[in-house]
């Protein structure tokens, strides 16, 4: 299914930020904004909620810690107890390093996998992009149009008024 978009191309992050605020104030829904680097303050301007990834990170860490402690206590304390240097079977201080490392291991990889999954990042043969300059030096604001694209002239005016250096119409196939 193809959809029509109006793409406002901006040259500067501050102009873009103001434009985002004004376009939203004008009651127009912004589909997405593409930028070559993270623009600070754009989350608030676009109304993007704060990511809950840190909470996920905490629980991944907790999983790692519990797993590491369980593994060491089960293996050396219960499954095959051995006397090592006359120490207790479950010598917790000696289990700290592995417990710490596995906490970090689970946090990092759990976070990375969650990030890739929710953002839809995975290796693919072909990447459909709105405007190739968005990974170079342009800031691209995409506004979804109706199927006929009849609002394009109105959007062009709105984007131009807010500092867009050019406005293009683009048809994208949604996957």
């Amino acid at each position: 299914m193809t959809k029509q978009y109006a793409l406002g191309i901006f040259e500067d992050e501050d102009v873009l930020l103001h434009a985002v605020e004004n376009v939203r104030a004008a009651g127009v829904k912004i589909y997405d904004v593409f930028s070559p680097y993270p623009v600070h303050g754009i989350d608030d301007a676009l109304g993007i909620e704060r990511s809950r990834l840190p909470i996920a990170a905490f629980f991944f860490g907790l999983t790692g810690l519990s797993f590491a402690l369980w593994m060491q206590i089960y293996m050396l304390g219960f499954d095959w107890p051995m006397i090592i240097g006359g120490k207790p079977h479950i010598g917790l201080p000696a289990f700290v390093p592995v417990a710490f490392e596995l906490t970090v291991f689970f946090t990092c990889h759990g976070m990375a996998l969650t990030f890739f999954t929710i953002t839809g990042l995975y290796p693919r043969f072909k990447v459909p992009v709105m405007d190739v300059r968005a990974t170079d030096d342009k800031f691209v604001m995409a506004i979804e149009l109706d199927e006929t694209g009849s609002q394009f002239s109105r959007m062009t005016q709105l984007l131009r008024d807010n500092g867009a250096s050019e406005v293009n119409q683009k048809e994208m196939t949604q996957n």
Partner: protein
Amino acid sequence: MQHVSSLREPLVTGGKTLHDVTQDICYQVEAKPNLRWMAALSVALFFLGVFFYSVYRTVWYGIGEWGLNKTVNWAWDITNFVWWVGIGHAGTLISAVLLLFRQKWRSSINRAAEAMTIFAVICAAMFPVLHMGRPWLAFYVFPFQNTLGSLWANFNSPLLWDVFAISTYFTVSLVFWYIGLIPDFASIRDRAKGPIAKFSYSMLSFGWKGSAKAWSRYETVSLILAGVSTPLVLSVHTIVSMDFATSVVPGWHTTIFPPYFVAGAIFSGFAMVLTLMLITRVVFRLEDYITLEHIALMNKIMMVTGSIVGVAYITEFFIAWYSQVEFEQYAFINRATGPYWWAYASMMTCNVITPQLVWFRRVRYSIPLTFILSIIVNIGMWFERFVIIVTSLHRDYLPSSWAMFSPSIIDIGLYVGTLGLFFTLFLLFAKFFPVINMAEVKTILKYTGDNGPTYNPKAHAAHAHHPATHGAPASAPVTYNQHD
């Protein structure tokens, strides 16, 4: 919005625009390899060949190919292992610790430094694995039930902690590095002309489009990864030092080892970063991104950590005397005046005396002197590990077992071989991956580039002479202060 003092030197010079950054960095990836690169790669490949030959001899004929004997049963292998792991630490320090401290100057060097970390850890891992003698059984280091029963790994052993520390460190560094690379791969993908390049960088970029939400999550992930990598990097060398510190060998059995090793690791790591960066900036013409200011800042870190290491050397001596333990005292006297005095003297000169030259501004800002200094520090830090390992082992409690160590040709081959492995990987990285984090440099460009609002007048005057780069400034001048 950020405020940057106008007194601060710009972090990126040459009046770069956003497009210039993409152009300058992607140019290396897109252009045909130049002769200097090919020449460097052939030398590296030759030493990689030496590495493979030495590995073949070690695996086929056994550990007897090395110069070890029953007294000195750890020598060059563990020296090289600790040396390489230590070198890796600067990369994580730059990518994680300096990120948490909001040191913006790290942006130009973090990509290559992280790559260095990963390649250094690969080289480091070769030594313990080869020392096993039967590397195909290396998976036994993991808690793996053996085929005869349910005998598990010994979690009380620092060597096992090391397995977990190094594996975690390697995989975490790799993931952190790769997440940072994704937006830059997307930049290359969107410029790619040929079908092979387009396909490869599409695959590598994981479908990155730079949407606002993705960037927001990207920043969250980077911050948390930096947060967990910071204690991780400290833990890794702490655990490496515990390989020695938890034993009862005089000269090893000291509580100062963890902080001392961590400082030494960062010290040698920054020396290696400097060595690599000074070459990379010239070969790839990145003088505007890796400026003299960057070199001076790295020199300062090198000097601070070098001084910490110097204090640690002196403290060890003091504690040996203060402990009143005869064996401990002898170990240190033997280090300084025994048959390996020359290794000790090299270590002291290279690590404690030469870095103090960095106090002079002229040294700090001099490229040739910094280069020489960084090599000297790398040599010194290798000797440090050699001194700690070999001089402590060769004469311990029982004089009848005293022995000397001399490396075999295979020992030497393995060491220079890993240098070949390291440089092969680094050269391939430098050619096919963006050596500078474009997205991050673009973030700082407007505020700390010399065409930003807080430009330094001297640099601005200089850049007015380059009309070519002045065409379309990335930042529209009228809007600078609206958001402040």
